[in-house]
């Protein structure tokens, strides 16, 4: 198990899923790939099939219609897989928590490993969060 985690931290392939978000966090995630921040030079890649994912980036306020699909996506991901909640909506549902069409917060649905708050979190904040997570995971191996 620890070998898998070490392998995971070397070059993380992320899969992005949105469960009812306003798009801001999603665009900032994509911004991380663009020339200014360029995460691909660290080996972090955004991939299109969840079966290859090492990390799930989840945004959104958990609308009722998306939650069953989100659970299915998580089941399809190969374990071990870290779950990262990006944005205040994913961390705590933000101002939508009283709405009639949102479900429970993300940490009641899936096991969350990292929360990156912000509305939207700047790309620098996201990179910082991922670095912290990688450091922690590598520390666990020891």
């Amino acid at each position, binding site marked *: 198990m620890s070998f898998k985690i070490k392998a995971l931290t070397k070059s993380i392939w992320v*899969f*992005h*899923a*949105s*469960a*009812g*978000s*306003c*798009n*801001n*966090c*999603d*665009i*900032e995630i*994509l*911004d991380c790939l*663009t*020339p*200014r921040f360029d995460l691909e030079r660290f080996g972090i890649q*955004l*991939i*299109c*099939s*969840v079966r290859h994912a090492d990390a799930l980036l989840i*945004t*959104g*306020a958990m*609308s009722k*219609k*998306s939650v069953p*699909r989100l659970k299915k*996506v998580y089941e399809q991901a190969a374990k071990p897989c870290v779950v990262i909640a990006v944005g205040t909506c994913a961390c705590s549902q*933000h*101002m*939508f928590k*009283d*709405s*009639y*069409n*949102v479900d429970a917060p993300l940490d009641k649905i899936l096991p969350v490993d990292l929360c990156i708050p912000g*509305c*939207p979190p*700047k790309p620098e904040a996201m990179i910082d969060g991922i670095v912290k997570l990688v450091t922690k995971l590598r520390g666990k191996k020891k």
Partner: protein
Amino acid sequence: MSHKVIVPIGPYHPLQEEPEFFQLYVEGEKVVDIDIIIGYNHRGIEKLAEAKHFDQVPYLVERICGICSSSHPYAYVLAVEDLLGTEANVVPERALYIRTIIDELQRIHSHLLWLGLAGHFIGYNTVWMWAWKYREPVLDMFEMITGNRNNYAMFKVGGVRRDIKDEDVPFLKKTLDELVPALDMFKGAVMDDPVIQARLKKVGVLTKQQAIDWCVVGPTARASGLNMDVRRDEPYGVFDRVDWNVIVEKDGDVFAKTVVRVLEMYESVSIIRQCLSKMPKGEIDANIKDIPPGEGIGRVEAPRWECFHYIKSDGTNRPIRHKIRAPSFMNVASDKVAAVGGTISDATLTLAAVDPCYCCTERVEVIRKSDDKKIMNGWDLIKLSHEKTNKVKEELLNGRA
């Protein structure tokens, strides 16, 4: 022999931020019908707005959509100011200029974003990277004025919340000057590249009559020959005091939609420059305290379309009804006619050309009418699109040789 193929695009595709569900019915390669299922992003904002104070609502509506993040609060404050009188009477002049600048900066960043996505869909990843690279200076301008790259928190009833400092103006002007050569490059790429023309022309056509019947607006309508623009028809901000043109194209295909958006960016740069030089000194906030009973309608020309807000007040400090028509509501429905008749490989492009503000977008599912449903991944659909581009490139090269 008719077959149904199920081809889902997304929902969690790298470039499809929000989930939306299109079901395409195909026979062979041709799309014969399309079913659109949305609702994955429905967060009950209209109901939440009824529980908020008038000043708290802009914060809420900003987060309806992240890309057109300033259109919704602008339409909302226009609706409340419509209730009180008209914007020009209520709001101080400097605030009108600042509002216009924010609105136009947002249009540039949104069109560049779309250009990048369209480039990716047809396989030109360089276009994607460069369009988003040149989006960064625009976001820097936002950060300088408002403090944030994306959610600006600038609009309030009666004015704006932050001023543009005089010492910031040279930076803004310089960044705009540096943006124009990039726009020239994109314009050249779009207009002159034969592969792009071959991929985009005659694809996803929406005729003028269809555009009227489906009540579409914005660049989607202007690409089909409908000459309408809220900024000209019902001027808000200072659009009636600066010189600019409405861009209209006739063909209604994806190429026309691209041209409209590229040329609109030039207009936006020109408008911002004029605003920066004409902006007078003065107050930025009218300090409105009470909202009397009544109703108001506010609309702005968001990058995607006419963004419409309706407010009903009963004299208390909360709206009793707030109706929001997000820009893509009508345009996405019109995909029904635009995508039908085309091929699967053009499907993603057609759906993306409408520029759905993925507030309500999910995956596309292509259904083949037969017993064995073949499920293709959304990525497969994008790959189909890339394959078609490669085929077109080859044909052109062979034609030349």
